[in-house]
């Protein structure tokens, strides 16, 4: 039901909006939602953090960018390559780090993000270095051309909605329960026979793959990418989206992505204070409502519902 409403909303917005600026903004919200959703799966459900998600985002964008612009591959061939490469990188990062406590994963992914940024800048024969990579073609599917901004909007949101739908299903499955169990108590989860290490690696890879898909969509939308779009601040922006939307909330990711996309656009002074705002948001929300805005409101609602329920009799053997 919620999907139908959202779909209708996107369709209405797509046909209703005429200004290219607004369409572009909505498209970016879709791409950011993908990023936030992916990281949310990792942070909210597995209780692990990644401070280098921009590198996975960048990997997706650069792999498809290089393959299509330099080697003239079809984007649809480049997509699986981008996904596979990102998954492999994420797997290698996750395998040893997820055994360690959350702080080390934070530092490790931070370091990985820096490595990614340096590689995008320095490997200029492929990536174009600081001046960026130009000439990434737009997407085409048969007779349908996504060079048209509205079509691209629909494409991005179709992918985003599909991912939200799939993640929602995953969370409400056996795997999702196991993930939440790890988040609540790793010791108890492993005493239930859950292979916590393996599951954490899987969710990390899933999270990175979603970032890569977002990167793919981003690259073919803007047709020009440069390292600046994948630096540390971008990783922080994604974390902030998750924090605003609330960890462990698929729909919160949408909210976080919308806020973090619209806010910088509407506040023109924002660039000066961007970092201060991010920092304050992260600190304040973590202290006051660690579940995030969205989840915080839901929690109040759920608590109220439980209070009114009747009290059962308890265990009697």
């Amino acid at each position, binding site marked *: 039901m919620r999907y139908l409403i959202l779909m209708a909303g996107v369709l209405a917005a797509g046909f209703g909006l005429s200004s290219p600026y607004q369409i572009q903004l909505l498209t970016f919200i879709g791409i950011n939602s993908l990023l936030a959703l992916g990281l949310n799966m990792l942070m909210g459900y597995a209780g692990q953090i990644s401070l280098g998600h921009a590198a996975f985002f960048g990997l997706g964008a650069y792999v498809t960018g290089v393959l299509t612009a330099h080697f003239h591959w079809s984007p649809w061939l480049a997509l699986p390559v981008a996904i596979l490469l990102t998954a492999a990188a994420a797997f290698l990062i996750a395998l040893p*780090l997820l055994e360690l406590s959350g702080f*080390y994963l934070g*530092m490790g992914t931070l370091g*990985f993000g820096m490595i990614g940024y340096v590689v995008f800048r320095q490997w200029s024969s492929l990536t174009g270095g600081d001046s960026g990579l130009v000439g990434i073609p737009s997407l085409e599917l048969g007779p349908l051309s996504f060079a048209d901004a509205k079509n691209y909007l629909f494409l991005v949101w179709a992918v985003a909605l599909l991912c939200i739908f799939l993640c929602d299903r995953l969370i409400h499955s056996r795997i999702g329960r196991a993930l939440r169990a790890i988040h609540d108590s790793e010791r108890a989860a492993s005493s239930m026979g859950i292979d916590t290490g393996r599951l954490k690696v899987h969710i990390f890879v899933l999270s990175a793959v979603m970032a890569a898909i977002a990167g793919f969509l981003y690259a073919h939308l803007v047709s020009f990418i440069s390292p600046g779009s994948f630096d540390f601040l971008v990783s922080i922006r994604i974390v902030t989206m998750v924090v605003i939307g609330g960890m462990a909330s698929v729909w919160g990711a949408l909210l976080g992505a919308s806020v973090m996309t619209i806010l910088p656009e509407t506040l023109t002074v924002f660039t000066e204070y961007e970092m201060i705002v991010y920092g304050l948001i992260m600190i304040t929300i973590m202290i006051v409502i660690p579940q995030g805005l969205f989840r915080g409101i839901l929690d109040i609602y759920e608590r109220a519902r439980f209070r009114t329920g009747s009290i059962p009799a308890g265990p009697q053997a």
Partner: protein
Amino acid sequence: MQEFLQYIFSGITNGAVYAVIALGFSMLYGSTGLINFAQGEFVMIGALSLISLWKGVNLPLPLAFAGAVAITAIAGAMLERFAIRSVKKPHPIVLVIITVGASILLRGVGMLVWGKDSHGSPSFSDHAPYDILGATLLPQSLWILVLTLGVVLGLHIFHKRFLTGRAMLACAISTKAAGIVGIPTEKMVLLAFSMSAAMGGIGGVLIAPLSMSSFDMGMNLGLKGFCAAMIGGLGSSWGAVVGGLLLGVLEALGVGFLSSGLKDAAAFVLLLLILYFRPSGLLGTASVQRF
């Protein structure tokens, strides 16, 4: 030979700065079990405060030095008092997000206060560089080495000889037990935060004359300090020093083979390798908390 010696000199100089930053990470981890992602930002604040106080306000160097370190110590204390202490459930991910938030906040504040430009600082003294076997040794390097040694010794004496220092070690072993015997554990955490921030500040003061300082210098230095602390084994003071020097020298020698752009990446690759293969550090024996 001459070139090699030159690399070693510059490596040891940078390494000593990494060592001081690493010491900040290490002592905070040792006494609270936390890793502060804003540590690098304290380095930035230390460096830029020194430049402002010394060259901007024209304070004498020792006063400017003390002032810069005091400013970072206060920033560290505020981080603990207003952010860390208010956390209800200290899950690692929450603490990571808060300290990362603090780091980005401080960086934003740094940009507002000092602008986006880089600032330089002269050396602490005007001696001519020394010539040793054809390689030049800057007087600033000696300053850095002496001050680093001073910090390490000071910390060692603080932990071993002073009641407060021993109380802090007690808190590190068991906060609960320390509280029961009457140690004000909250104050100890506050003190640990400001001391670790002060060490970041000292690192910043030391590095200010070596390179240009700007609001975004913190993350690189913070990560390298963390890398050094990991090499030596988190929680170990001497490990932090050895780790810092090792990282500095390796990095300096690496410049000979790698381009300067890749130099930064090399330190992070090293960090990842250490996290993979020796998370307890090359020297450390303490087991890494697995959760």
